[in-house]
């Protein structure tokens, strides 16, 4: 009898449940505008994307910690953003884009 009740309880528990996607995106491009609040980047397809900058945004240049002042118009950057967000988590600064 105890076993039967246990089975019924388990079935009820499982069936009651019937009633009731962590990666970041990388944005690569060339900086066309930068301020303390945002950075605008031109992507490979020539479209632009503006990403917000906050106190939590980190900066990196050649693998070393950098600052917002290291981001300049014309720089190649790779920006980590949350999958469905537009706030920059990490901005990696690279070479100056070719003219």
């Amino acid at each position, binding site marked *: 009898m105890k076993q039967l009740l246990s089975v*019924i309880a388990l079935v009820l*528990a499982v*069936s009651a449940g019937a009633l009731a*996607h962590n*990666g970041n*995106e990388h944005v690569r491009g060339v900086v066309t505008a930068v301020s303390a609040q945002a950075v605008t980047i031109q992507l*490979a397809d020539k479209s632009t994307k503006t990403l917000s900058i906050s106190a939590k945004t980190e900066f990196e240049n050649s693998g070393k910690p950098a600052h917002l002042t290291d981001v300049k118009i014309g720089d*190649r950057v790779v920006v980590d953003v949350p999958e469905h967000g537009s706030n920059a988590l990490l901005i990696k600064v*690279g*070479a100056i884009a070719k003219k």
Partner: protein
Amino acid sequence: MAIITLAAVVLVGAVGIVWLVNANGFSARTLPTPVERVVMRAVHRWSVPSAARGLKNPVAFSPEAWAESRAHFADHCASCHGNDGRGNTEMGRNLFPKAPDMRLPSTQDKTDGELYWIIENGIRLTGMPAWGKGGTEDADTWKLVHFVRQLAQLTPDQLKEMEAANPKSPAELQEEKDDERFLAGEDVPPPVAPHHH
């Protein structure tokens, strides 16, 4: 009379369950119901033998053990539990039951022996696999017990270091290489949005 009434209640319940299952199916995306939570708590409690609960951690805590456990956790456990133990990962969120926030009392109130046993032997009917061979002297597992106890002490730098030790897919490794080439001034294909499956 009582037996007939009980049988009728069971029959009606059974028909209702069949109808509900047929109409809704099962999904791991939902939260466990209160009844399921009670059953699962009992299963978790029974899954650790009483002798194991009293086991003491034979590995002394040290900066070296702490560093080793961070690297071990990042490589083997973080896919589900997250480097910070909150379980807020794609897999952790979508398991049934979901990966727990291990900083909370539901995990921290367990004894060292219970944590060791769970890491070594897993938990049936959950996503937690058995990582060990079932003995009581696996030093790496005991170091992971230290890690679980130290979750609240993790610093941003340590979390970043753990990120570098997280497993990466071939696509992620390729994207990292492409990022480096792009930053060095080469032309590379546009990045691909992360996959979910």
